[in-house]
């Protein structure tokens, strides 16, 4: 069958306690964009890791253009023409673009030739990128281009992309889609993993749906609805967040001309950020990654204290207070990075519950931890937010990204905060779980909490926020009611210094 590029038959991979992939078979045709859909933990990552040679299947075979294909390591996969762009970039901040590209190649050509090749590829595919820029200074979208160009230089037959649009602005997404369609036209097949079902409808030719490690359905995305695909993924129907209508109450959080120097060589300084957050209100901050989101969270959580008079909670100045005092005042935060920041990877879920809830949930008495109480609190969070885990004793790192996300957001929501700041609350979470998290945030607001959602997912912000602002290079744009905004305006609010013109190439 010359039409099939990669044929998977009966792929099975079991880990202790869980079958990640169970007898999965499907074909990827030459030059098609094939979507791989599934909830968190459905086995998508394991499957692509097998295709990319990172994991070896227990059972089953693959054939690439009719020949047996069993890569023992990623370099073997690359040699066979399979390339992959990961969700988390593997780039070195301190090196420049060309050096980073060279590091990922088997036999990098001399620097001069490589720089020329990078320029050629970047022009051909409309991905503006200067080979001599230091990666630390690039936006998330530009970093992704480095990864993509690294793959394209090896002339792949199959390109695997894991959640490529989660860090991009709408304009950057358009550029990426143009590139992907061009690749498709040239005969490169693409295996595309995403939770954004509208994107898949716009881009992909076929879709394979995984659920609990098994292939449960195939469909043609353009001929089906996003909702139908989501229901195939979870195997049942689910409710979209119900819009809420509350009138904003008193000001709970006031940020007044907040400024902070950049925390490191590649951080972003905060410049004169001011806003007010009222009871019952959901405020949304958009912006391309690396424009001060993480720094704003550090300043609001109390991990970095700021000048007196910059952060006010219910009329009291908390600018110099640490995280513990701020939590005591009902001011809770959830940072973006789940592992290592919001949660300690090697500690159990019970221990991770103590991490932020110790004082508010009275898990600690006279300095001694009440482990029974802590465990019950962790169980509550797990039950309320449908965290899939064998139990509270499990280490945080053993949970899939989406499940851990549900846990760390749930941990803060369950503490009934007066003010809750969340960064990327549904990042890497499947549709049903994302809907549940958003609903929880809306419910909290309707009970009178003030909520700030910082996110790169614009659809999410438009869905739940009352007012919208964009962060750009550490500055906050004017805040506008969401009802009066369209995508184009938002893009302009976010854009600013980052050049999104597809035709422009830095020479």
């Amino acid at each position, binding site marked *: 069958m010359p039409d099939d590029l990669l044929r998977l038959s009966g792929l099975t991979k079991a*880990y*202790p*306690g869980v079958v990640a992939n169970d007898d999965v078979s499907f074909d990827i045709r030459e030059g098609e964009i094939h979507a791989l859909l599934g909830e968190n933990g459905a086995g998508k990552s394991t499957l692509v890791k097998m295709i990319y040679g990172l994991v070896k299947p227990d059972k089953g075979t693959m054939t690439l253009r009719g020949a*047996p294909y*069993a890569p*023992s390591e990623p370099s073997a996969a690359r040699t066979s023409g399979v390339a992959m762009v990961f969700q988390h970039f593997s780039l070195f901040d301190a090196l420049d673009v060309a050096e980073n590209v060279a590091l990922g190649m088997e036999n990098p050509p001399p620097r001069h030739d490589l720089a020329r090749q990078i320029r050629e590829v970047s022009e051909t595919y409309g991905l503006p990128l200067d080979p001599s820029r230091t990666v630390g200074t690039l936006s998330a979208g530009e970093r992704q281009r480095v990864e993509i160009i690294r793959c394209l230089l090896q002339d792949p037959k199959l390109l695997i992309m894991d959640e490529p649009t989660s860090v991009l602005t709408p304009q950057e997404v358009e550029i990426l889609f143009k590139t992907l369609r061009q690749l498709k036209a040239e005969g490169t097949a693409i295996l595309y993993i995403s939770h954004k079902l509208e994107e898949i409808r716009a881009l992909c030719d076929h879709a394979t749906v995984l659920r609990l490690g098994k292939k449960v359905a195939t469909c043609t995305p353009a001929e089906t609805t996003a909702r139908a695909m989501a229901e195939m993924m979870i195997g049942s129907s689910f409710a979209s967040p119900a819009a809420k209508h509350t009138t904003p109450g008193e000001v709970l959080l006031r940020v007044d001309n907040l400024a902070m120097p950049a925390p490191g060589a590649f951080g972003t300084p905060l410049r004169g950020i001011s806003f007010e957050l009222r009871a019952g209100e959901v405020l949304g901050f958009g912006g391309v990654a690396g424009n001060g989101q993480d720094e704003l969270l550090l300043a609001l*959580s*109390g*991990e970095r204290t700021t000048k007196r008079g910059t952060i006010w909670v219910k009329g009291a100045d908390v600018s110099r207070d*640490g*995280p*513990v*005092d701020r*939590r005591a005042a009902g001011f809770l935060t959830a*940072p973006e*990075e789940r592992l*290592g*920041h*919001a*949660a*300690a*990877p*090697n*500690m159990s879920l019970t*221990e991770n519950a*103590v*991490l*932020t809830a*110790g004082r508010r949930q009275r898990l*600690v008495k006279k*300095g*001694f*931890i009440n*482990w029974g109480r802590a465990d019950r609190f962790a169980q509550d969070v797990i039950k309320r937010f449908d965290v899939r885990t064998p139990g509270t004793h*499990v*280490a945080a*790192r*053993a949970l899939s990204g989406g499940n851990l996300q549900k846990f760390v957001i749930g941990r803060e929501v369950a503490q009934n905060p007066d003010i809750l700041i969340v960064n990327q609350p549904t990042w890497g979470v499947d549709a049903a779980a994302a809907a549940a998290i958003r609903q929880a945030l809306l419910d909290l607001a309707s009970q009178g909490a003030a909520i700030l959602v910082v996110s790169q997912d614009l659809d999410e912000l438009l869905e739940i926020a009352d007012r919208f602002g964009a962060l750009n290079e550490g500055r906050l744009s004017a805040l506008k009611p969401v009802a009066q905004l369209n995508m184009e305006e938002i893009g302009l609010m976010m854009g600013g210094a980052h050049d999104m013109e597809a035709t422009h190439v830095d020479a």
Partner: protein
Amino acid sequence: MIQLEKRPQPSKAWTVATPILAVILTMIFGGIMFSLIGTSPVEAIRTIFWDPLFHPQFAGFSRPQLLVKAGPLILIAIGLSIGFRAGIWNIGAEGQYIIGAICGAGAGLALYPMDSALILPLMIVAGALGGWAWAMIPAMLKVKFGTNEILVSLMLVYVAENLLASVSSGILRNPEGMGFPGSRNLSQWSSSQNLELIPNTGMHLGVLTAFIAVILAYVLLTRHIQGFNIRLTGEAPRAAKFAGVSPARTILFCLGLAGALAGMAGLFEVTGPAGQISIDFGSGYGFTAIIVAFLGRLHPVGILLAGLLMALTYIGGELAQLMLGVPGASIQLFQGMLLFFLLGVDVLTNYRVRIGKGELA
């Protein structure tokens, strides 16, 4: 093909089994080594592990030595392990041990020859304070200027050693010692002596303190929020900051505690087994305790067992040199093997070994 596959979480069973496996492997490979140098492996291993405790002739002397040697190792290692859990690398316990002994002995000798039951407790407090103050130097420098505590605490060991040489031939020198360097004998002065609590067991106040420290450290690490914060700091420093743990306070607490415990260990040693401040008082306990702390997996109970095991190989090693005439280097090699295997097989707690199914070429 042998492959290592990361476990989703550390295996509890292997955490317990790896030390036993390591001891068995050491016996096998140590036995091979001893047979290569012409000594009966069975006899050598029996002399090292069995005779110190059960030999009809020598055990009477060497059995109490087990606790005498293990006591300071455990006490110091407990203090170090708590810092290590937080990622604070105090490797200057030897210096804190020496300064503790000097301060404690100095406080006692200032009152010589007064006769009071309060002198020994006073000396213990002075010893702990001395060790604490010595550890505060790297702690404060780290908090204020971000210096590296590894380098500062290590260099302060050499400062302490020179101070020791200076005071034992200067200010603390025994006026009745006919000019020999070294202080009065504190174990022979009734107010300061730290005698065996139970005769012929080696159990003196320092050993008792070490056992109490094991229990308190266990409670601290498993039940108390301070211990939780320490573990959190070591596991995920950013998560600890997010939780609201102050890095500066953690540094001061961990270094201070380790210094105080090492200082007390020094004081118990100088008033008991060593007897006096002398130039060669520094015996390396502070460094060996680092090994004990890691052998014990930074766990209080593990450290208790590791301290006893370390002490046993020292005593058994000396016995083997004496009785079998094996060279000292072979004993060191044997101890090195034990460390090597203990740390090496630890990989099994976090990884499972897959012995390859035939790979498609």
